[in-house]
Protein backbone atom coordinates (compact mmCIF):
# COMPACT_ATOMS: atom_id res chain seq x y z
CA UNK A 1 0.00 0.00 0.00
CA UNK A 2 1.37 3.40 -0.93
CA UNK A 3 0.56 6.44 1.12
CA UNK A 4 0.12 10.00 0.00
CA UNK A 5 -0.18 13.06 2.20
CA UNK A 6 -2.79 15.53 1.00
CA UNK A 7 -1.49 19.08 1.52
CA UNK A 8 -3.85 22.02 1.28
CA UNK A 9 -1.58 25.00 2.02
CA UNK A 10 -3.86 25.78 4.88
CA UNK A 11 -4.29 29.33 5.95
CA UNK A 12 -4.85 29.80 9.67
CA UNK A 13 -8.30 31.29 9.52
CA UNK A 14 -9.14 33.58 12.41
CA UNK A 15 -12.73 33.01 13.62
CA UNK A 16 -13.80 36.49 12.53
CA UNK A 17 -13.52 35.67 8.84
CA UNK A 18 -16.93 35.24 7.20
CA UNK A 19 -17.67 31.63 6.40
CA UNK A 20 -19.66 31.91 3.21
CA UNK A 21 -17.99 31.23 -0.11
CA UNK A 22 -16.65 33.29 -1.75
CA UNK A 23 -14.81 34.87 1.17
CA UNK A 24 -14.05 38.56 0.57
CA UNK A 25 -10.36 38.88 -0.22
CA UNK A 26 -10.24 42.06 1.81
CA UNK A 27 -10.10 39.79 4.86
CA UNK A 28 -6.71 38.45 3.77
CA UNK A 29 -3.69 39.03 5.98
CA UNK A 30 -0.33 38.90 4.13
CA UNK A 31 1.66 37.52 7.08
CA UNK A 32 -0.74 34.65 7.47
CA UNK A 33 -0.61 34.01 3.75
CA UNK A 34 3.17 33.77 3.66
CA UNK A 35 3.02 31.44 6.67
CA UNK A 36 0.64 29.18 4.80
CA UNK A 37 3.15 28.51 2.06
CA UNK A 38 6.04 28.19 4.45
CA UNK A 39 3.98 25.70 6.42
CA UNK A 40 3.31 23.81 3.21
CA UNK A 41 7.02 23.41 2.58
CA UNK A 42 7.73 22.44 6.20
CA UNK A 43 5.09 19.75 6.11
CA UNK A 44 6.23 18.39 2.76
CA UNK A 45 9.81 18.09 4.00
CA UNK A 46 8.52 16.49 7.19
CA UNK A 47 6.46 13.81 5.47
CA UNK A 48 9.26 13.15 3.00
CA UNK A 49 11.50 12.31 5.93
CA UNK A 50 8.82 10.22 7.56
CA UNK A 51 8.64 8.06 4.46
CA UNK A 52 5.37 9.03 2.80
CA UNK A 53 5.39 8.09 -0.88
CA UNK A 54 3.54 11.08 -2.31
CA UNK A 55 2.40 14.55 -1.40
CA UNK A 56 -0.80 15.51 -3.15
CA UNK A 57 -2.31 18.85 -4.06
CA UNK A 58 -5.74 19.90 -5.28
CA UNK A 59 -7.10 22.92 -7.13
CA UNK A 60 -9.46 25.27 -5.32
CA UNK A 61 -10.28 28.88 -5.87
CA UNK A 62 -11.41 31.91 -3.95
CA UNK A 63 -10.99 30.32 -0.55
CA UNK A 64 -8.72 30.90 2.41
CA UNK A 65 -8.93 27.28 3.34
CA UNK A 66 -6.99 25.88 0.40
CA UNK A 67 -4.56 28.36 -1.11
CA UNK A 68 -3.75 26.47 -4.30
CA UNK A 69 -5.71 27.90 -7.23
CA UNK A 70 -2.94 26.78 -9.58
CA UNK A 71 -1.45 23.42 -8.69
CA UNK A 72 1.47 23.63 -11.09
CA UNK A 73 2.72 26.72 -9.30
CA UNK A 74 2.61 25.18 -5.82
CA UNK A 75 3.85 21.90 -7.26
CA UNK A 76 6.96 23.43 -8.70
CA UNK A 77 7.72 25.37 -5.53
CA UNK A 78 7.48 22.09 -3.65
CA UNK A 79 9.66 20.39 -6.26
CA UNK A 80 12.42 22.86 -5.51
CA UNK A 81 12.16 22.22 -1.79
CA UNK A 82 11.97 18.44 -1.79
CA UNK A 83 14.12 15.62 -3.10
CA UNK A 84 12.42 12.29 -3.60
CA UNK A 85 8.77 12.47 -2.68
CA UNK A 86 6.36 12.21 -5.58
CA UNK A 87 4.23 15.21 -6.34
CA UNK A 88 0.69 14.17 -7.09
CA UNK A 89 -1.52 16.85 -8.65
CA UNK A 90 -5.02 15.56 -8.01
CA UNK A 91 -5.98 17.48 -9.94
CA UNK A 92 -6.36 20.37 -12.27
CA UNK A 93 -10.02 21.09 -12.96
CA UNK A 94 -9.95 20.25 -16.62
CA UNK A 95 -13.47 21.42 -17.40
CA UNK A 96 -12.60 25.04 -16.72
CA UNK A 97 -9.00 25.19 -17.87
CA UNK A 98 -7.28 25.51 -21.17
CA UNK A 99 -6.26 21.86 -21.64
CA UNK A 100 -3.23 22.75 -23.71
CA UNK A 101 -2.02 25.04 -20.95
CA UNK A 102 -2.50 22.23 -18.42
CA UNK A 103 -0.49 19.91 -20.64
CA UNK A 104 2.30 22.48 -20.87
CA UNK A 105 2.43 23.23 -17.15
CA UNK A 106 2.39 19.60 -16.13
CA UNK A 107 5.13 18.73 -18.62
CA UNK A 108 7.23 21.51 -17.07
CA UNK A 109 6.50 20.20 -13.59
CA UNK A 110 7.40 16.62 -14.45
CA UNK A 111 10.68 17.79 -15.97
CA UNK A 112 11.83 20.15 -13.28
CA UNK A 113 10.93 17.69 -10.55
CA UNK A 114 13.03 15.02 -12.25
CA UNK A 115 10.10 12.81 -13.10
CA UNK A 116 8.24 12.89 -9.79
CA UNK A 117 4.88 13.95 -11.18
CA UNK A 118 1.71 11.93 -10.65
CA UNK A 119 -1.14 13.43 -12.64
CA UNK A 120 -4.87 13.26 -12.01
CA UNK A 121 -7.54 14.95 -14.15
CA UNK A 122 -10.59 16.26 -12.39
CA UNK A 123 -14.05 17.33 -13.48
CA UNK A 124 -14.37 19.61 -10.49
CA UNK A 125 -16.38 19.82 -7.31
CA UNK A 126 -19.79 21.44 -7.63
CA UNK A 127 -18.97 24.74 -5.96
CA UNK A 128 -16.07 25.26 -8.35
CA UNK A 129 -18.46 25.81 -11.25
CA UNK A 130 -18.90 29.34 -9.97
CA UNK A 131 -15.22 30.19 -10.14
CA UNK A 132 -14.85 30.71 -13.87
CA UNK A 133 -18.52 30.56 -14.82
CA UNK A 134 -18.59 26.98 -15.97
CA UNK A 135 -22.04 25.85 -17.08
CA UNK A 136 -22.71 22.75 -14.97
CA UNK A 137 -24.58 21.15 -17.87
CA UNK A 138 -21.36 21.23 -19.90
CA UNK A 139 -18.98 20.02 -17.21
CA UNK A 140 -18.98 16.37 -18.14
CA UNK A 141 -18.43 16.94 -21.84
CA UNK A 142 -15.79 19.58 -21.33
CA UNK A 143 -13.90 17.31 -18.97
CA UNK A 144 -13.91 14.37 -21.34
CA UNK A 145 -12.81 16.44 -24.29
CA UNK A 146 -10.21 18.26 -22.21
CA UNK A 147 -8.73 15.02 -20.93
CA UNK A 148 -8.43 13.63 -24.45
CA UNK A 149 -6.77 16.79 -25.63
CA UNK A 150 -4.24 16.72 -22.80
CA UNK A 151 -3.30 13.12 -23.56
CA UNK A 152 -3.05 13.89 -27.26
CA UNK A 153 -0.91 16.96 -26.56
CA UNK A 154 1.58 14.77 -24.69
CA UNK A 155 1.75 11.92 -27.16
CA UNK A 156 1.22 13.25 -30.68
CA UNK A 157 4.68 13.64 -32.25
CA UNK A 158 3.67 16.29 -34.79
CA UNK A 159 2.02 19.71 -34.37
CA UNK A 160 -1.74 19.29 -34.83
CA UNK A 161 -5.03 21.16 -34.84
CA UNK A 162 -8.06 20.26 -32.71
CA UNK A 163 -11.68 20.69 -33.79
CA UNK A 164 -13.49 19.97 -30.62
CA UNK A 165 -16.98 20.76 -29.37
CA UNK A 166 -15.69 23.00 -26.62
CA UNK A 167 -12.08 23.58 -27.53
CA UNK A 168 -10.65 24.58 -30.86
CA UNK A 169 -7.01 25.10 -31.75
CA UNK A 170 -5.28 25.42 -35.07
CA UNK A 171 -1.83 24.61 -33.71
CA UNK A 172 -0.81 22.50 -30.71
CA UNK A 173 2.84 21.59 -30.25
CA UNK A 174 3.75 21.25 -26.60
CA UNK A 175 7.35 21.83 -25.45
CA UNK A 176 8.66 20.46 -23.14
CA UNK A 177 7.29 16.94 -23.01
CA UNK A 178 6.86 15.12 -19.69
CA UNK A 179 10.02 13.43 -18.50
CA UNK A 180 8.28 10.15 -17.72
CA UNK A 181 7.45 8.16 -20.82
CA UNK A 182 5.11 7.46 -22.41
CA UNK A 183 3.14 9.32 -19.71
CA UNK A 184 3.55 10.17 -16.05
CA UNK A 185 1.30 7.94 -13.89
CA UNK A 186 -2.07 9.36 -14.90
CA UNK A 187 -5.49 9.03 -13.30
CA UNK A 188 -9.02 9.98 -14.13
CA UNK A 189 -10.50 11.36 -10.91
CA UNK A 190 -14.12 10.63 -10.15
CA UNK A 191 -16.46 7.82 -9.24
CA UNK A 192 -18.77 8.24 -12.21
CA UNK A 193 -19.34 5.73 -14.95
CA UNK A 194 -17.88 8.20 -17.43
CA UNK A 195 -14.71 8.56 -15.40
CA UNK A 196 -14.29 4.78 -15.08
CA UNK A 197 -14.89 4.21 -18.77
CA UNK A 198 -12.50 6.95 -19.79
CA UNK A 199 -9.79 5.54 -17.56
CA UNK A 200 -10.29 2.02 -18.86
CA UNK A 201 -10.33 3.11 -22.47
CA UNK A 202 -7.14 5.16 -22.18
CA UNK A 203 -5.26 2.70 -19.96
CA UNK A 204 -4.95 5.13 -17.09
CA UNK A 205 -5.72 4.83 -13.38
CA UNK A 206 -8.80 5.83 -11.38
CA UNK A 207 -9.06 8.11 -8.38
CA UNK A 208 -12.03 8.01 -6.01
CA UNK A 209 -12.60 10.04 -2.89
CA UNK A 210 -14.18 10.62 0.46
CA UNK A 211 -17.26 8.39 0.26
CA UNK A 212 -17.50 5.26 2.43
CA UNK A 213 -15.86 2.03 1.27
CA UNK A 214 -19.03 0.35 -0.02
CA UNK A 215 -19.73 3.27 -2.31
CA UNK A 216 -16.28 3.74 -3.79
CA UNK A 217 -15.97 -0.02 -4.13
CA UNK A 218 -18.77 0.15 -6.70
CA UNK A 219 -16.60 2.42 -8.82
CA UNK A 220 -13.42 0.41 -8.52
CA UNK A 221 -15.34 -2.74 -9.39
CA UNK A 222 -16.91 -1.11 -12.42
CA UNK A 223 -13.53 0.28 -13.45
CA UNK A 224 -11.90 -3.14 -13.30
CA UNK A 225 -14.72 -4.63 -15.38
CA UNK A 226 -14.29 -1.91 -17.96
CA UNK A 227 -10.55 -2.50 -18.10
CA UNK A 228 -11.14 -6.18 -18.78
CA UNK A 229 -13.53 -5.16 -21.54
CA UNK A 230 -10.66 -3.18 -23.09
CA UNK A 231 -8.30 -6.09 -22.66
CA UNK A 232 -6.16 -5.16 -19.67
CA UNK A 233 -5.88 -5.47 -15.88
CA UNK A 234 -5.05 -2.46 -13.70
CA UNK A 235 -2.43 -2.80 -10.95
CA UNK A 236 -3.44 -1.85 -7.42
CA UNK A 237 -1.39 1.37 -7.59
CA UNK A 238 -3.57 2.47 -10.45
CA UNK A 239 -6.38 3.11 -7.99
CA UNK A 240 -6.26 5.95 -5.49
CA UNK A 241 -8.62 6.57 -2.59
CA UNK A 242 -8.50 10.07 -1.15
CA UNK A 243 -9.97 10.12 2.34
CA UNK A 244 -10.09 12.01 5.60
CA UNK A 245 -8.18 10.49 8.50
CA UNK A 246 -8.28 11.30 12.17
CA UNK A 247 -5.53 9.40 13.96
CA UNK A 248 -5.03 9.75 17.68
CA UNK A 249 -3.21 7.79 20.37
CA UNK A 250 -6.41 6.02 21.40
CA UNK A 251 -9.81 5.23 19.92
CA UNK A 252 -11.58 7.34 22.57
CA UNK A 253 -9.53 10.40 21.79
CA UNK A 254 -10.19 9.98 18.09
CA UNK A 255 -13.95 9.71 18.62
CA UNK A 256 -13.94 12.83 20.72
CA UNK A 257 -12.01 14.82 18.14
CA UNK A 258 -14.29 13.57 15.40
CA UNK A 259 -17.33 14.83 17.31
CA UNK A 260 -15.67 18.20 17.72
CA UNK A 261 -14.98 18.37 14.03
CA UNK A 262 -18.49 17.41 12.98
CA UNK A 263 -19.68 20.46 14.80
CA UNK A 264 -17.22 22.66 12.94
CA UNK A 265 -17.71 24.67 9.78
CA UNK A 266 -18.10 23.21 6.31
CA UNK A 267 -15.20 23.96 3.99
CA UNK A 268 -17.11 25.77 1.25
CA UNK A 269 -20.47 26.87 2.58
CA UNK A 270 -22.70 28.59 0.07
CA UNK A 271 -25.74 30.82 0.16
CA UNK A 272 -28.79 28.57 0.34
CA UNK A 273 -30.28 29.83 -2.92
CA UNK A 274 -27.12 29.14 -4.85
CA UNK A 275 -26.63 25.73 -3.25
CA UNK A 276 -30.17 24.64 -4.12
CA UNK A 277 -29.74 25.74 -7.72
CA UNK A 278 -26.44 23.92 -8.07
CA UNK A 279 -27.83 20.73 -6.57
CA UNK A 280 -30.50 20.68 -9.24
CA UNK A 281 -28.08 21.25 -12.10
CA UNK A 282 -25.21 19.03 -11.10
CA UNK A 283 -25.70 15.46 -12.29
CA UNK A 284 -23.40 13.02 -10.61
CA UNK A 285 -23.20 9.26 -10.46
CA UNK A 286 -21.23 6.44 -8.89
CA UNK A 287 -20.52 3.86 -11.60
CA UNK A 288 -23.84 4.77 -13.16
CA UNK A 289 -25.98 5.04 -10.01
CA UNK A 290 -27.19 8.58 -9.43
CA UNK A 291 -25.87 10.32 -6.38
CA UNK A 292 -26.37 13.82 -5.05
CA UNK A 293 -23.38 16.08 -5.34
CA UNK A 294 -21.68 17.50 -2.28
CA UNK A 295 -22.05 21.23 -2.54
CA UNK A 296 -19.36 22.49 -0.22
CA UNK A 297 -20.45 20.51 2.83
CA UNK A 298 -18.45 18.52 5.36
CA UNK A 299 -16.94 15.32 3.99
CA UNK A 300 -17.01 12.02 5.89
CA UNK A 301 -13.96 10.72 7.75
CA UNK A 302 -13.17 7.22 6.55
CA UNK A 303 -10.30 6.37 8.90
CA UNK A 304 -10.41 7.24 12.57
CA UNK A 305 -9.20 5.77 15.78
CA UNK A 306 -5.97 4.72 17.42
CA UNK A 307 -3.19 3.09 15.35
CA UNK A 308 -4.47 -0.48 15.65
CA UNK A 309 -7.98 0.47 14.60
CA UNK A 310 -6.73 2.48 11.66
CA UNK A 311 -4.51 -0.38 10.48
CA UNK A 312 -7.53 -2.66 10.54
CA UNK A 313 -9.60 -0.11 8.63
CA UNK A 314 -6.90 0.18 6.00
CA UNK A 315 -6.76 -3.56 5.56
CA UNK A 316 -10.53 -3.67 5.20
CA UNK A 317 -10.36 -0.86 2.67
CA UNK A 318 -7.84 -2.77 0.59
CA UNK A 319 -10.02 -5.88 0.67
CA UNK A 320 -13.30 -4.11 -0.12
CA UNK A 321 -12.15 -1.37 -2.46
CA UNK A 322 -8.94 -2.78 -3.89
CA UNK A 323 -6.97 0.50 -4.07
CA UNK A 324 -3.19 0.50 -3.89
CA UNK A 325 -2.76 4.15 -2.90
CA UNK A 326 -4.31 6.04 0.00
CA UNK A 327 -4.27 9.81 -0.29
CA UNK A 328 -4.84 10.97 3.26
CA UNK A 329 -6.20 14.30 4.42
CA UNK A 330 -5.06 14.59 8.02
CA UNK A 331 -7.63 17.01 9.39
CA UNK A 332 -10.26 19.12 7.74
CA UNK A 333 -8.94 22.23 6.04
CA UNK A 334 -9.39 25.40 8.05
CA UNK A 335 -8.76 23.95 11.48
CA UNK A 336 -6.14 26.32 12.95
CA UNK A 337 -4.12 23.91 15.08
CA UNK A 338 -1.21 22.42 13.13
CA UNK A 339 0.57 21.03 16.19
CA UNK A 340 -1.93 18.22 16.39
CA UNK A 341 -1.48 17.60 12.68
CA UNK A 342 2.27 17.09 13.03
CA UNK A 343 1.77 14.70 15.93
CA UNK A 344 -0.73 12.71 13.87
CA UNK A 345 1.74 12.47 11.03
CA UNK A 346 4.47 11.22 13.31
CA UNK A 347 2.15 8.73 14.92
CA UNK A 348 1.08 7.49 11.51
CA UNK A 349 4.64 7.08 10.29
CA UNK A 350 5.68 5.29 13.43
CA UNK A 351 2.74 3.06 14.22
CA UNK A 352 0.73 2.62 11.01
CA UNK A 353 2.92 2.99 7.94
CA UNK A 354 5.30 0.08 8.62
CA UNK A 355 2.36 -2.27 9.18
CA UNK A 356 0.52 -1.48 5.97
CA UNK A 357 3.34 -1.62 3.45
CA UNK A 358 2.55 -5.15 2.33
CA UNK A 359 -1.20 -4.65 2.45
Amino acid sequence: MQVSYFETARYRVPPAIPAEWPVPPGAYDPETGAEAYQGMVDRVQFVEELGFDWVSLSEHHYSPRILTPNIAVSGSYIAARSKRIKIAVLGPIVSQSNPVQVAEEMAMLDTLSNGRLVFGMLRGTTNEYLTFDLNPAEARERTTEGMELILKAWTEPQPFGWQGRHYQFRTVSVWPRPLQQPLPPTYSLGTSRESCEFAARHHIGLGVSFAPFEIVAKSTRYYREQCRHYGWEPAAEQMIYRANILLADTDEEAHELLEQQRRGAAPFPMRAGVREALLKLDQRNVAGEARSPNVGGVLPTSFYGGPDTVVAQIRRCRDEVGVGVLDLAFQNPGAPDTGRLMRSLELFAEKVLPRIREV
Partner: protein
Amino acid sequence: MRVLQKGLIVTQAGDAFREGHVDADGFRIRYMEAGQGPPFVHLHGAGGLRLTRGHDLLSRQFRVIAFEMPGFGASPENDRSRDMPELAATMATATDALGLDQFNLMGTSFGGKTALWLALLQPDRVQALVLEAPAAIRPHGSRPPAGSPEEMARRLFAHPERLAPMPLPDPAVQARQARLTARLRGPDRDADLEGRLPGLVVPTLVLFGTVDRVIPPEMGHFYKELMPNCHLVFVYDAGHAISTDRPEAFVEVVADFIERREAFVISRTDTVIHP
Protein backbone atom coordinates in the same frame (compact mmCIF):
# COMPACT_ATOMS: atom_id res chain seq x y z
CA MET B 1 -29.36 9.89 -47.28
CA ARG B 2 -31.70 10.88 -44.53
CA VAL B 3 -30.11 12.66 -41.63
CA LEU B 4 -31.33 12.74 -38.05
CA GLN B 5 -31.02 16.04 -36.32
CA LYS B 6 -31.98 16.28 -32.66
CA GLY B 7 -34.52 13.49 -33.17
CA LEU B 8 -36.24 15.11 -36.14
CA ILE B 9 -35.68 13.99 -39.69
CA VAL B 10 -34.94 17.09 -41.73
CA THR B 11 -34.28 17.56 -45.41
CA GLN B 12 -32.39 14.93 -47.31
CA ALA B 13 -28.71 15.69 -47.60
CA GLY B 14 -27.81 16.48 -51.17
CA ASP B 15 -31.29 17.68 -52.17
CA ALA B 16 -29.86 20.68 -53.98
CA PHE B 17 -27.36 18.63 -56.01
CA ARG B 18 -27.94 18.02 -59.74
CA GLU B 19 -26.68 15.04 -61.65
CA GLY B 20 -24.34 15.24 -64.62
CA HIS B 21 -22.05 13.02 -66.73
CA VAL B 22 -18.68 13.39 -68.44
CA ASP B 23 -16.67 11.06 -70.59
CA ALA B 24 -13.07 10.28 -69.72
CA ASP B 25 -10.80 7.48 -70.84
CA GLY B 26 -13.74 5.60 -72.30
CA PHE B 27 -15.72 5.73 -69.07
CA ARG B 28 -19.01 7.55 -68.62
CA ILE B 29 -18.52 9.21 -65.26
CA ARG B 30 -21.43 10.40 -63.14
CA TYR B 31 -21.15 13.39 -60.82
CA MET B 32 -23.36 15.46 -58.48
CA GLU B 33 -22.97 19.22 -58.44
CA ALA B 34 -24.26 22.16 -56.38
CA GLY B 35 -23.22 25.62 -55.31
CA GLN B 36 -21.25 28.50 -56.74
CA GLY B 37 -17.79 29.77 -56.07
CA PRO B 38 -14.32 28.25 -56.28
CA PRO B 39 -14.44 24.66 -57.62
CA PHE B 40 -14.23 21.92 -55.00
CA VAL B 41 -13.84 18.41 -56.37
CA HIS B 42 -14.56 15.43 -54.10
CA LEU B 43 -13.41 11.84 -54.58
CA HIS B 44 -15.38 9.40 -52.43
CA GLY B 45 -14.32 6.41 -50.33
CA ALA B 46 -14.60 2.68 -50.91
CA GLY B 47 -18.33 2.68 -50.19
CA GLY B 48 -19.07 4.86 -53.20
CA LEU B 49 -20.63 8.29 -53.66
CA ARG B 50 -22.89 9.31 -50.79
CA LEU B 51 -23.90 12.93 -50.29
CA THR B 52 -23.79 14.18 -46.71
CA ARG B 53 -24.68 17.34 -44.78
CA GLY B 54 -21.03 18.17 -45.18
CA HIS B 55 -21.55 18.49 -48.92
CA ASP B 56 -24.56 20.74 -48.37
CA LEU B 57 -22.60 23.06 -46.11
CA LEU B 58 -19.65 23.16 -48.49
CA SER B 59 -21.95 24.02 -51.39
CA ARG B 60 -22.84 27.29 -49.64
CA GLN B 61 -19.32 28.56 -50.33
CA PHE B 62 -18.00 26.45 -53.18
CA ARG B 63 -19.02 24.86 -56.44
CA VAL B 64 -18.97 21.30 -55.18
CA ILE B 65 -18.47 18.52 -57.72
CA ALA B 66 -18.72 15.06 -56.18
CA PHE B 67 -17.68 12.39 -58.68
CA GLU B 68 -18.78 8.81 -58.76
CA MET B 69 -15.60 7.07 -59.87
CA PRO B 70 -15.85 4.43 -62.63
CA GLY B 71 -16.88 1.03 -61.27
CA PHE B 72 -18.75 2.45 -58.28
CA GLY B 73 -22.49 2.66 -57.77
CA ALA B 74 -24.62 1.79 -60.76
CA SER B 75 -21.78 2.22 -63.26
CA PRO B 76 -20.52 -0.86 -65.11
CA GLU B 77 -17.72 -2.97 -63.63
CA ASN B 78 -14.34 -1.32 -64.03
CA ASP B 79 -11.73 -3.90 -64.93
CA ARG B 80 -9.56 -1.47 -66.85
CA SER B 81 -8.01 0.77 -64.20
CA ARG B 82 -5.02 -1.30 -63.17
CA ASP B 83 -3.80 0.72 -60.24
CA MET B 84 -4.49 3.85 -58.25
CA PRO B 85 -2.33 6.19 -60.38
CA GLU B 86 -4.36 5.15 -63.42
CA LEU B 87 -7.63 5.81 -61.68
CA ALA B 88 -6.28 9.18 -60.60
CA ALA B 89 -5.28 9.99 -64.17
CA THR B 90 -8.78 9.15 -65.35
CA MET B 91 -10.29 11.45 -62.71
CA ALA B 92 -7.90 14.20 -63.80
CA THR B 93 -9.16 13.77 -67.36
CA ALA B 94 -12.71 13.98 -66.04
CA THR B 95 -11.99 17.37 -64.47
CA ASP B 96 -10.56 18.49 -67.81
CA ALA B 97 -13.72 17.37 -69.53
CA LEU B 98 -15.70 19.55 -67.14
CA GLY B 99 -13.63 22.53 -68.20
CA LEU B 100 -11.89 22.95 -64.84
CA ASP B 101 -8.46 24.50 -65.06
CA GLN B 102 -7.51 24.70 -61.39
CA PHE B 103 -9.53 23.36 -58.50
CA ASN B 104 -9.52 22.44 -54.83
CA LEU B 105 -9.51 18.70 -54.26
CA MET B 106 -10.75 16.55 -51.40
CA GLY B 107 -10.38 12.77 -51.08
CA THR B 108 -12.10 10.60 -48.47
CA SER B 109 -10.48 7.42 -47.18
CA PHE B 110 -9.77 5.27 -50.30
CA GLY B 111 -10.43 8.40 -52.36
CA GLY B 112 -7.77 10.14 -50.28
CA LYS B 113 -5.15 8.00 -51.93
CA THR B 114 -6.68 8.74 -55.33
CA ALA B 115 -6.55 12.44 -54.59
CA LEU B 116 -2.90 12.23 -53.52
CA TRP B 117 -2.00 10.57 -56.81
CA LEU B 118 -3.98 13.13 -58.77
CA ALA B 119 -2.12 15.94 -57.02
CA LEU B 120 1.20 14.21 -57.72
CA LEU B 121 0.33 13.80 -61.39
CA GLN B 122 -0.98 17.34 -61.92
CA PRO B 123 0.25 19.52 -59.05
CA ASP B 124 -0.22 22.77 -60.94
CA ARG B 125 -3.96 22.24 -61.12
CA VAL B 126 -4.61 21.44 -57.48
CA GLN B 127 -4.87 24.64 -55.44
CA ALA B 128 -5.39 22.98 -52.07
CA LEU B 129 -5.71 19.35 -51.07
CA VAL B 130 -7.92 18.02 -48.27
CA LEU B 131 -7.61 14.43 -47.08
CA GLU B 132 -10.56 13.21 -45.00
CA ALA B 133 -9.45 10.16 -42.98
CA PRO B 134 -7.08 9.15 -45.80
CA ALA B 135 -6.34 5.46 -46.32
CA ALA B 136 -3.01 5.96 -48.07
CA ILE B 137 -0.88 5.11 -45.01
CA ARG B 138 -2.21 2.27 -42.91
CA PRO B 139 -1.03 0.10 -40.02
CA HIS B 140 0.02 -3.39 -41.10
CA GLY B 141 -2.89 -5.77 -41.38
CA SER B 142 -5.44 -3.00 -41.84
CA ARG B 143 -8.88 -4.27 -42.97
CA PRO B 144 -11.46 -2.23 -44.83
CA PRO B 145 -14.92 -2.10 -43.21
CA ALA B 146 -17.11 -5.04 -44.23
CA GLY B 147 -19.97 -7.17 -42.99
CA SER B 148 -23.56 -6.49 -42.08
CA PRO B 149 -24.95 -2.93 -42.13
CA GLU B 150 -24.72 -2.85 -38.32
CA GLU B 151 -21.07 -3.90 -38.35
CA MET B 152 -20.26 -1.37 -41.03
CA ALA B 153 -22.02 1.40 -39.13
CA ARG B 154 -20.11 0.61 -35.99
CA ARG B 155 -16.83 0.92 -37.83
CA LEU B 156 -17.67 4.04 -39.78
CA PHE B 157 -19.50 6.27 -37.31
CA ALA B 158 -18.70 7.48 -33.78
CA HIS B 159 -22.31 7.11 -32.60
CA PRO B 160 -24.13 4.81 -35.00
CA GLU B 161 -27.14 4.71 -32.69
CA ARG B 162 -27.79 8.41 -33.43
CA LEU B 163 -28.19 7.94 -37.19
CA ALA B 164 -31.32 7.02 -39.07
CA PRO B 165 -31.18 3.53 -40.59
CA MET B 166 -29.67 3.67 -44.07
CA PRO B 167 -31.04 1.97 -47.17
CA LEU B 168 -29.56 -1.50 -47.65
CA PRO B 169 -26.90 -1.49 -50.33
CA ASP B 170 -27.34 -3.60 -53.46
CA PRO B 171 -25.23 -6.75 -52.89
CA ALA B 172 -24.13 -6.83 -56.52
CA VAL B 173 -22.90 -3.24 -56.32
CA GLN B 174 -21.15 -3.98 -53.04
CA ALA B 175 -19.39 -6.98 -54.53
CA ARG B 176 -18.24 -5.01 -57.60
CA GLN B 177 -16.95 -2.16 -55.44
CA ALA B 178 -15.15 -4.54 -53.11
CA ARG B 179 -13.34 -6.21 -56.01
CA LEU B 180 -12.32 -2.88 -57.45
CA THR B 181 -11.07 -1.40 -54.21
CA ALA B 182 -9.20 -4.55 -53.29
CA ARG B 183 -7.32 -4.28 -56.57
CA LEU B 184 -6.60 -0.58 -56.31
CA ARG B 185 -6.06 0.12 -52.60
CA GLY B 186 -2.44 -0.98 -52.70
CA PRO B 187 -0.20 -2.00 -49.78
CA ASP B 188 -0.63 -0.65 -46.25
CA ARG B 189 2.67 1.19 -46.64
CA ASP B 190 3.20 2.23 -50.24
CA ALA B 191 6.89 2.98 -50.72
CA ASP B 192 6.40 4.45 -54.17
CA LEU B 193 3.76 6.91 -52.99
CA GLU B 194 5.55 7.79 -49.78
CA GLY B 195 8.79 8.34 -51.70
CA ARG B 196 7.09 11.02 -53.79
CA LEU B 197 5.22 12.87 -51.07
CA PRO B 198 8.18 15.01 -49.97
CA GLY B 199 8.01 16.57 -53.43
CA LEU B 200 4.32 17.49 -53.21
CA VAL B 201 4.18 21.18 -52.35
CA VAL B 202 0.43 21.64 -52.67
CA PRO B 203 -0.96 22.97 -49.34
CA THR B 204 -2.57 19.92 -47.72
CA LEU B 205 -4.97 19.51 -44.80
CA VAL B 206 -5.23 16.07 -43.22
CA LEU B 207 -8.21 15.39 -40.93
CA PHE B 208 -8.83 12.44 -38.63
CA GLY B 209 -11.70 11.84 -36.24
CA THR B 210 -10.52 10.93 -32.73
CA VAL B 211 -12.75 7.82 -32.78
CA ASP B 212 -11.91 6.57 -36.28
CA ARG B 213 -12.23 2.77 -36.11
CA VAL B 214 -11.08 2.17 -39.67
CA ILE B 215 -7.82 4.12 -39.93
CA PRO B 216 -6.31 5.04 -36.55
CA PRO B 217 -5.77 8.81 -36.10
CA GLU B 218 -2.17 8.00 -35.16
CA MET B 219 -1.55 7.67 -38.92
CA GLY B 220 -1.94 11.43 -39.28
CA HIS B 221 1.57 12.42 -38.29
CA PHE B 222 3.13 10.41 -41.14
CA TYR B 223 1.58 12.75 -43.71
CA LYS B 224 2.80 15.76 -41.79
CA GLU B 225 6.30 14.36 -41.60
CA LEU B 226 6.46 13.47 -45.30
CA MET B 227 4.86 16.50 -46.94
CA PRO B 228 6.43 19.95 -46.85
CA ASN B 229 3.20 21.95 -46.57
CA CYS B 230 0.87 19.69 -44.61
CA HIS B 231 -1.37 20.46 -41.63
CA LEU B 232 -2.89 17.93 -39.29
CA VAL B 233 -6.23 18.45 -37.52
CA PHE B 234 -8.16 16.06 -35.24
CA VAL B 235 -11.94 16.29 -35.18
CA TYR B 236 -13.03 15.33 -31.70
CA ASP B 237 -15.70 12.65 -31.27
CA ALA B 238 -15.94 11.94 -34.98
CA GLY B 239 -15.44 8.51 -36.50
CA HIS B 240 -14.14 7.54 -39.91
CA ALA B 241 -17.01 9.33 -41.65
CA ILE B 242 -16.12 12.76 -40.28
CA SER B 243 -18.41 14.78 -42.51
CA THR B 244 -21.36 12.67 -41.42
CA ASP B 245 -20.53 12.65 -37.72
CA ARG B 246 -19.65 16.33 -37.26
CA PRO B 247 -20.37 18.19 -40.49
CA GLU B 248 -20.24 21.74 -39.06
CA ALA B 249 -16.91 21.28 -37.31
CA PHE B 250 -15.55 19.56 -40.41
CA VAL B 251 -16.69 22.19 -42.89
CA GLU B 252 -15.56 25.12 -40.75
CA VAL B 253 -11.93 24.10 -40.85
CA VAL B 254 -12.00 22.77 -44.42
CA ALA B 255 -13.56 25.95 -45.82
CA ASP B 256 -11.13 28.10 -43.84
CA PHE B 257 -8.20 26.09 -45.19
CA ILE B 258 -9.43 26.32 -48.78
CA GLU B 259 -9.74 30.07 -48.40
CA ARG B 260 -6.57 30.90 -46.48
CA ARG B 261 -4.32 27.84 -46.89
CA GLU B 262 -1.56 27.83 -44.26
CA ALA B 263 -2.69 31.20 -42.95
CA PHE B 264 -5.70 29.32 -41.55
CA VAL B 265 -3.67 29.01 -38.34
CA ILE B 266 -4.35 32.69 -37.59
CA SER B 267 -7.55 33.14 -35.65
CA ARG B 268 -10.20 35.53 -36.86
CA THR B 269 -12.75 34.54 -34.28
CA ASP B 270 -14.70 37.37 -32.75
CA THR B 271 -14.70 36.97 -28.99
CA VAL B 272 -16.52 40.16 -28.13
CA ILE B 273 -19.35 39.14 -25.81
CA HIS B 274 -21.22 42.42 -25.90
CA PRO B 275 -20.09 45.64 -27.57
